[in-house]
């Protein structure tokens, strides 16, 4: 105690007292103030929106406008929601490499953290579908595969093919193959309807049914081959081509071989 009082006139004493007082006030506040988690989240959220706005200005604004209002080169992003951003950017479709009938999937250049920031900014422009949590698209019930198969054939198979192999649309557009697509992105595509795909909102296809469809599509990737060559599971086109070229072609070759050679004992 003597030591302390001896130094009470030290030039830094006021600073030490001030720091102690601040620490005490902060500690007491932290201990007794009502836990306002939401407030803290909002702060993180607004930070993400700010960061997202910067990323948006660099990567997206040349087509979608500085505030996502859209231009002649890209649609307005007001109300598309965070699910659409997560899908488009995480699959590398956005930023688009070039304008055209279809924007193809390519390598993603953003980290998930940056994508979340971009999504936070776009979501702040207007309410829209929210990116799903893992629980929403992960199925735990094995019956979901069968139920999802029914739903897939009703809603998806017409464009994406009964085995999820994709197919052609009009004027250069196509429905991409679903092979190896992330469960989250399948879910988001159904939610938001990217490019020319129609959307399947929760009002007409509840969350549980989307989860079942995701389970079925993932199952398509994993199921063992029951035998033979799948030939891309494209149906009669590849099978017919294979039959004509390899089946009939081999038969014709054999017929020519049989007719062209006889086993003569050669003069020697």
């Amino acid at each position, binding site marked *: 105690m003597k030591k302390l009082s001896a130094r009470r006139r030290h030039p830094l004493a006021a600073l030490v007292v001030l720091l102690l007082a601040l620490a005490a006030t902060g500690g007491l506040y932290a201990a007794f103030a009502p836990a306002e988690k939401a407030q803290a989240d909002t702060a993180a959220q607004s930070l993400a929106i700010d960061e997202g706005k910067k990323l948006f200005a660099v990567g997206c604004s040349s087509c979608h406008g500085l505030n996502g209002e859209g231009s002649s080169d890209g649609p307005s992003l007001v109300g598309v929601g965070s699910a659409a951003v997560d899908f488009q950017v995480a699959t590398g479709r956005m930023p688009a490499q070039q304008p055209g009938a279809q924007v193809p999937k390519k390598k993603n250049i953003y980290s998930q953290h940056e994508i979340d920031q971009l999504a936070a900014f776009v979501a702040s422009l207007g309410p829209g579908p929210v990116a799903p949590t893992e629980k929403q698209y992960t199925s735990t019930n094995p019956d979901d595969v069968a139920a999802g198969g029914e*739903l897939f054939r009703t809603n998806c198979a017409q464009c994406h093919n009964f085995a999820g192999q994709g197919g052609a649309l009009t004027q250069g557009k196509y429905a991409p193959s679903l092979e190896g697509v992330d469960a989250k992105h399948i879910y988001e595509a159904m939610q938001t309807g990217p490019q020319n795909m129609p959307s399947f*909102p929760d009002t007409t296809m509840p969350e549980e049914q989307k989860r079942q469809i995701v389970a079925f599509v993932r199952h398509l990737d994993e199921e063992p081959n029951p035998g033979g060559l799948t030939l891309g599971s494209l149906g009669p086109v590849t099978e017919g081509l294979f039959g004509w070229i390899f089946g009939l072609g081999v038969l014709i070759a054999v017929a020519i071989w049989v007719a062209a050679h006889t086993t003569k*004992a050669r003069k020697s």
Partner: protein
Amino acid sequence: MSEDKLPESHGSAGQHEVATHGDPFADPGLPAHEPRRTDIDERAAKRAERQVSLMFVVSMLATVGFIASYVAIDADKIVYIFPLGHVSALNFALGLTLGVALFCIGAGAVHWARTLMSDHELPAERHPIEADDEVRADVIEQFKTGAAESGFGRRKMIRNTLIGSMALVPLSGVVLLRDLGPLPEDKLQHTGWDLATPEHPLPLVNMNTNKPMKAEDIVVGSLTFAKPEGLEEDDEFFQQQIAKDALMLVRIAPENIKDKDSAELGFEGILAYSKICTHVGCPISLYEQQTHHALCPCHQSTFDLADGARVIFGPAGHPLPQLKITTNEEGFLVATGDFAEPVGPSFWERS
């Protein structure tokens, strides 16, 4: 054909004419017959015989193997086979044994024919197709005599009744075809939606959830499939019925709908079109939400749903029929009547 051009006039094989200065187009005849090893070497012949028999025996064994694997291998068993990956053991065994069994019969037969059956060259003469003049004159004479004796040209009644009876016989075939089933009558003109009337509208049921839908459930850019209320998947004739009743519901921002009549049939931009292509009746729902085009996967007929489902490409002859929809007092989407025209492909009576 003159006699001296026939191959046998050139004697046995090997004795052929050689083209000379005076006769540049001499007939070289058949090349000399060369015996096969099996023709001259009895041991080679025996060996070929054993090879052919071996192939037939392998075929027999493969058939036995086919039956055995059918009995022995569990249908659910999956095995890893190198180039094919994970395959069903049963399918693989059945395919392999049956393939070997058939291939060995064929290969054995070919080998037999090539090594052991006689391979002496035989010329087959080509004759003119028409008979010679004498035969033809004789046939014409006989025909004329027959015609005269039958009095076909003279007795007109017999001739006309014969023609009549011959013409009518094919009708019996038509009657037999008629036996295939009752005529469709007006079944092609109506769908399950004809139960709906303005007084008793029929709710639209979502194919996914099996529940009626409200207008706000359908958002712009979405695609929903619907069926009439009362049609259940367990029904005996569900498949026949849904093949006519299937609806696709799209919502297009009202300012984007080009066809006024089409907008009036819908409800606040929600349009209900038949899902059945008007070309040959494929289910058509490859809907592009930005262009509002619907594409048929069978023959690429393309319909512009924003313009009354007008055909903009492909072989379809009619726009897709549109169902008039509205909402009832509780806000659920309902149909107030059947399609104005038959759904699906063209048929003779279709207006």
